[in-house]
Every structure is written in C-alpha cells, then in structure tokens.
C-alpha cells in the first residue's frame, strides 16, 4: 500500500522548503499563539492573519485545496462545539464595517471566530508540515527543546507507521478470508482482538530485532544524530518579517483577552 502522500509535498523544492525548519516551527508556534490570543468575538480582526499561511502555501507550492481539505476533514468535532455557542451566548453585539452596522448574537460571533481561527491554524500547520521533511522537523525540535530520546522515538514512530499498518491490513485480510464477515458480533469482537493482539506480538518481536540491529551497529544507549539544519540570512529575514507581521496583526486592535 502506497502511503506516499504524506511526504509528497514535503520533499519538494521551493523558497519555503529551503527555510530552516527551526524558523518555520517557531513561526508557526508564534502564529498559533497570536491567533488564540484574539478574543472570542474577533472575526474581521483575523483578516490580516490570513496572509501568512496562504503566503507559505503559495510560495511553498502546496496546493491550497489540499490544505483546505485538511480543514474540512478535521473540522467536524470543533465545529460542532462551536455551533453550540449560539445557544448560550445570546448577548447582542454590534458589528460595524465601514458604512454598515448590524447586530449579531455573541454566540454566532464566537462560532465564526472559532471556525476561522481553526481553519487558519490548520492552514498554518499544513504549510509547515508540507514544506518540511519530517526528519528535519525532528532535528528542529531536538535542537530547540525536545529530549533526544523522545525525538528518537518519534523517528521510529514515523518510520514504522506504514510498515505496521500494512501488516495490520494483511492480518485482517487473512481473518476476513476465513469468513469473519458473516460471524456473530461476539466472534467478530474476538477476531478484532486477535488481529490487534497478533499485531502487538509481531511488533514486540520486531522491536526486539530492531534492538539487535541497533546493537550490531554499535548503539549503546546514547542517541547520536546528523546535523543538517543551517540557519542562514534568509531565515533571519523570514523570522524578522514574521515577528513584525504578527505584531502588526495583533496590535492593530486593542488587546482584549
């Protein structure tokens, strides 16, 4: 089974791809922080925040449609929550836009606010993950704040997700071919338990073998890694522009938390 799509964009080439992963990570963190610092009734104030993720997507040659689809797929839970707001917050708020004035219930504003923030957040995150190979993201996290051991585990997780998913599919197919579809629910439950249990056992054995292979190449408990990130003048410019941009977006409006 081909799982290439995760890395499909991340392995590409573009000005954004060339940016240091640390810079991109910090930028997205800062962006997310500023995003949620807007109060719950902010909608039009968020307009300028659209610029950064879209710019990253465009210059990063990541199709915006792809990013929007991520928003739609991930959205339902939070949108459901957001839609409950209008039931509770019925205080009226005036909205003024140029020559137009109207009043809207606070709950609807909040719902819109949360929806917009969510979409922007996902767009920004997608822009980063689709322009940065996972291994470089790991290196960025390692260099910034993450313990080496956790980084190594993230590497293993990433490496073996698809191997294990394929294995799970194979085990499940084997059971299906033994007539699991027609079985009563109790039998089906046991079968599912068996598939997961078998997968666990195989994973345990595999991790044993991996451990042996690591030892065979000299591993003794201390993770070592390559250093591939290079912070250059372009990255400095990127960070400065980002900070200025975020400050402008945030401070153009009075700070209400």
């Amino acid at each position, binding site marked *: 089974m081909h799982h290439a799509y995760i890395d499909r964009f991340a392995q590409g080439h573009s000005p954004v791809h060339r940016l240091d992963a640390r810079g991109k990570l910090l930028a997205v963190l800062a962006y997310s922080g500023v995003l949620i610092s807007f109060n719950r009734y902010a909608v039009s104030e968020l307009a300028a925040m659209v610029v950064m993720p879209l710019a990253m997507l465009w210059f990063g040659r990541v199709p915006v449609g792809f990013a929007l689809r991520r928003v739609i797929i991930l959205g339902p839970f939070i949108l459901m929550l957001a839609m409950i707001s209008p039931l509770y917050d019925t205080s009226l708020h005036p909205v003024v836009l140029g020559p137009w004035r109207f009043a809207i219930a606070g709950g609807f504003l909040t719902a819109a606010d949360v929806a917009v923030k969510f979409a922007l957040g996902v767009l920004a995150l997608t822009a980063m993950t689709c322009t940065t190979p996972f291994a470089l993201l790991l290196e960025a996290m390692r260099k910034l704040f993450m313990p080496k051991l956790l980084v190594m585990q993230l590497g293993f997780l990433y490496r073996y997700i698809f*191997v294990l998913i394929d294995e799970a599919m194979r085990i499940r197919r084997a059971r299906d071919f033994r007539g699991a579809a027609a079985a009563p629910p109790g039998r089906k439950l046991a079968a599912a338990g068996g598939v997961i249990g078998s997968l666990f056992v195989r994973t345990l054995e595999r991790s044993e073998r*991996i451990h042996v292979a690591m030892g065979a190449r000299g591993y003794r408990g201390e993770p070592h*890694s390559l250093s591939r990130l290079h912070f250059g003048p372009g990255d400095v410019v990127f960070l400065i522009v980002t900070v200025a941009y975020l400050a402008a977006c945030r401070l153009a409006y009075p700070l209400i938390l």
Partner: protein
Amino acid sequence: MSNVLEIQDLFVRYGDGTEALRGVSMSVAAGQRVALIGPNGAGKTSLLLAILRGVEFAGRVVVDGLELSRRAADEVRGRCGMTFQDADDQLFMPTLLDDVAFGPLNQGRTPPQAEALARAAIAAVGLAGLEGRSAHHLSGGQKRCASLATILSMQVKLLLLDEPGANLDFRSRVRLIELLAQRSEAVLLATHDLDMVRRLCPQVVLLDGGRVAASGPTQQILSDSSLLSAHGLA
C-alpha cells in the same frame, strides 16, 4: 595473510534448551568471501549472531585479532557489520541518510564525517539521490542495497550477510552480486542461494545440525551432489 575471523569450538545454546551450534570451528581470511550454507535450522544465523555477541556462546571467537569477550564486545562489533534477513528491521531511522550514518556516528565519528561516509556508501550501492527518502519509499531491492550501505559506511573488515538475496527479483539479485563482487572486505555469507554462492564465494562451509559437515572450495563442495542431498540442499 592473517585471518579476519577465527572460530574455535563454538557452542550456542538458547534459553529454551535448543542447541543451535555444537562445536563449530572455521576461519575467514582477510578479503576472502566464504559462504555458509545448510538447511533451515542448521545454525547459520546463530553463528553470525554469535560473532556479534548477540547471543550467549561458549568457545573462542577472534575478529581481526581481537578476542570476543563481554568486555571487548563493543570493539569487536566495530570491526564487523551484519545485515539481517528482514531489511525493515535494520532500516529504522527516518531517512536513508540517517540509517547509513547511524553506524559511523556510534563508532565515534563527528556528524560531518559520518555524513560524508554515509553519502559515499549510499553512492557505492547505487542509491545516490535517495538520501532524504524514508525506507518505506524504497523497493525491496533498494532496501537490500540500503542495508548493505549501513554497514559499508562503518568501514569494517568483515561483512556478515544473512540471506541477502532473499525475496529479490532476478535483476536486483544480479545487482547485489555485482556490488559484492567489487568489494574488498571479507564476507561471510549465509544463504540458500547456491547460484549466488557459485558466483561470489570461492570457499564454502556446510553447516547441518549445528555442526560443520563439510568445508572447502566451492567447486568441490557444490559439485558433490550426494553431499548436498544428504544435507537437504539438493
């Protein structure tokens, strides 16, 4: 020419009581390629693992003049490299470059040195350009070459290869054989693939039931059909 590998009276017994090896003695000269053949369960993999001290053993194992003991295990491991039957078990890093650099980094090289060694090894096995890829993007044949690269970058004197040709299509097998034929390291190759043995290895050790049943020049051993059928190989 000194021997890069000397094994004397090797005994390996597993926790559940099975005796995988019962008194095996053999040697591999520097730069020599020796094939280890035998039926399933003969003890081929156990032999390879013992050299790395991956299993408990009794007997004497000397790698490149260094006797393998508990203390010296790490140093000995630095002198030989092993590839395993399942390539997915030893390509465990997020990218190919990380995998091939893993060995050198553990040997104490600096990151730039390790990266250079890794790139050279990746190019040597014909996978240049794929350094940034993760192993799950590679084909079976590419993974085999990648596994080989992971130990070539360690610049070891002895390569221990466990069934390197298993599950490979014809073209990938041929490529692998060509690759190995060009290398100057000593090789101990455990395999069922007698064709690969004929093309690559001038010497053969036939293992059966944990003991050496025969050893000598490949031509001689592999043309002895009664010997082969007696040990389940033909």
